[in-house]
């Protein structure tokens, strides 16, 4: 008996193993790396251990001591791993612009034996405290600077958390905008998708197939083709403006592209299937006699809809809204192509840090903040919808 039970458990385990393995390798592991990346700060400490010892006793205001300079030269001479040095330079330049040229100059200088013990002859900038402060601030193996920077905060000279200077970073604003656009798109998807899903559920045969295909079409179209189509349709000399102008509805062309309107229109179009399909799949499970039953019991069709159809289909609406919202939050190509400058979403910023400047820590920190906010929103949402027994038994 025990053997059989064990056997069955083993089989069950083996059956779920592919899935578990997949999630572990392609989801959990990258997530752990991301978390680590966003708080880890070892790039400088690794290369400059001697400098770290010397900088510890420095007052952060006076010019660098001779010992500090000598230690830096010794550290750079000892460094052999080019990539690790590159990571260190990137980290320092990210805190203090100018480090890249300064370091490449210094590294080629220290390669010559006659350089040292002072750095002033190599570059005057080594006499300025900000560069040494940047080094001093980069020596803790764990840091919250990326997470703070992701929400426009930083630590001041005394170590207190403060706002970044105005105009130097706008992550909070972009986060806010990202959720606002995602919310707007979700709202429009519900407003358009729900009646459409009702229509599909009420139709039969070929009509249903055509209606379903129409909503699935954007999913099958390549992003670039779709965006090009929006461009043709929405631009100032585009089809919509042309039609409205020629019919005299408007006197001057409407701004439909390269602004928020364009982004919301295009994203709503792209994400509509994610709203329609879940709602539709719930609607078709609702017995067809419930609406007649409600009207026979004295409910006006509209009230019957509100009391019967709506609550029963809410499960689909909720999953559709979650799908659309979560997907919309991560969008960046569509806003980049049909949006204006003020429609950039947070993913574009994350993409900038990861693909353009290889600042993985900053990209990870922004990703962490996005994940955290999304999770909080999800929990709030689950709480709210749970109270109304959404997803209850049919």
């Amino acid at each position, binding site marked *: 008996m025990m053997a059989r039970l064990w056997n069955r458990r083993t*089989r069950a385990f*083996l*059956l779920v193993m*592919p899935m578990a*393995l997949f999630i572990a390798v392609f989801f959990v592991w990258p997530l752990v790396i991301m978390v680590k990346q966003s708080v880890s700060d070892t790039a400088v400490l690794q290369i400059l251990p001697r400098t770290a010892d010397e900088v510890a006793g420095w007052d952060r205001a006076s010019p660098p001591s001779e010992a500090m300079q000598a230690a830096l030269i010794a550290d750079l001479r000892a460094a052999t791993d*080019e*990539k690790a*040095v*590159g*990571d260190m*330079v*990137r980290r320092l*330049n*990210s805190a203090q*612009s*100018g*480090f*890249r*040229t300064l*370091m*490449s100059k210094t*590294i080629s200088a220290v390669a010559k034996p006659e350089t040292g013990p002072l750095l002033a002859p190599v570059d005057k900038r080594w006499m300025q405290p900000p560069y040494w402060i940047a080094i001093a601030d980069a020596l803790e193996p764990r840091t919250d600077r990326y997470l703070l920077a992701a929400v426009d905060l930083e630590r001041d000279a005394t170590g207190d958390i403060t706002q970044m200077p105005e*105009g*130097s*970073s*706008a992550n909070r*604003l*972009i986060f806010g*905008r990202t959720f606002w656009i995602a919310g707007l798109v979700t709202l429009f998807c519900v407003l358009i998708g729900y009646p459409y899903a009702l229509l599909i559920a009420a139709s039969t045969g070929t009509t249903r197939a055509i209606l379903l295909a129409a909503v699935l079409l954007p999913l099958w179209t390549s992003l670039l083709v779709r965006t090009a189509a929006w*461009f043709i349709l929405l*631009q*100032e*000399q585009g089809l919509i403006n042309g039609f409205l102008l020629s019919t005299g509805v408007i006197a001057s062309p409407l701004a439909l592209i*390269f602004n928020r309107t364009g982004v919301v229109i295009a994203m709503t179009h792209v994400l509509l299937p994610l709203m329609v399909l879940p709602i539709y799949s719930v609607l078709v499970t609702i017995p067809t006699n419930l609406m007649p039953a409600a009207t026979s019991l004295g409910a006006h069709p509209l009230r019957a809809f509100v009391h019967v159809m709506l609550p029963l289909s809410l499960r689909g609406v909720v999953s559709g809204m979650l799908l659309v919202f979560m997907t919309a939050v991560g969008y960046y190509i569509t806003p*980049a*192509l049909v949006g*204006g*400058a*003020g429609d*950039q979403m947070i993913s574009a*910023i994350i993409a*900038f*840090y*990861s*693909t*353009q*400047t*290889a*600042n*993985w820590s900053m990209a990870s920190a922004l990703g962490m903040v996005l994940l955290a906010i999304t999770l909080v929103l999800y929990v709030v949402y689950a709480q709210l919808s749970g109270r109304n027994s959404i997803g209850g038994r049919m």
Partner: protein
Amino acid sequence: MTIKNGIRGFGLVSAAILAFAATPGLAGDLTIVGWGGATQDGQREAYFKPFAAKEGIKVLEDSWDGGYGVLQSKVNAGNPNWDVVQVESEELVLGCADGIYEKLDWAQIGPKEDFLEESVSDCGIGTLTSGTGLAYDSEKLPDGPKSWVDFWDLKKYPGKRALRKGPKYTLEFALMGDGVPADKVYEVLATPEGVDRAFKKLEELGPNLIWWEAGAQPIQYLASGEVAMSAAYNGRVSNVNAKEGKKFVFVWPGNVVATDSWVILKGSANKEAAQKAIAFMSQPENQAKMPKYVAYGITNKKAAAEVPPELEKNLPTNVDNLKGALPLGVDFWIDNNESLTQRFNAWLATR
């Protein structure tokens, strides 16, 4: 199927997947990565096909849109599936410092003095020089703008303008638009006041300013009349004039000149072939073929001498065109790209 068989089946499938995932790029097939568009079409004819024919090597192509992080992650992951990549100046310098490129064997390529000074480095060799500058459609604007100052003149030239989304080029143009002479631009931009001044200048255009990201976009905007003028790459402008009979004008004074280079990614499985390909693509007789496909400057001085005059006059390296041109401040952008991009994004976000 019994469960036992099923599990055995799964084992086979997962083994297959792992084997697939672990397969490195096939050694022997050289992958060269350019920036797509007309340039890569030209490179295919002038470089890739003849080289493949000569060496009997299969050349695969890919294209990208830049981004240092892309190269870095490919090299760090090991076994990069790209061998030879066309990179921009800052990517060359950064990657060379970070050691993500192989050092070039100049003995195979030829004497360094045959090449323009800015195209010679340990890790890469310049392959083309492009200009980014002011462009407009002369059929729509017969008396067009002459300088970046005119670009900001909304009274004389009403209509929208487009600039490349990002601080690079844009801030330089803004300062020149504010009257800073080309040779003083980086001096001014190196000061916090200079950066403020550039952003303030951008602010002046208000809602008339839109942004592009891909090189094809400004040409589309100009063709559709969406914008009156735009920053654009000179090669794209020449190309649309030659192929579609447009009368677009590229304003040479105030254009920013930059050089793209070939590099070999560290860890390339085809290092030998890559080295050969780069040498081949740098020979004067091969480089001389490029200007007929796209109007970008070439880096081998011997090749430049062989370019017919009617093509040569459209190149950014033409002596007349270089008057008033601004060489890209590679060092400036290496140091300041991240902080200025952060500020640029913040500025965009609050507009």
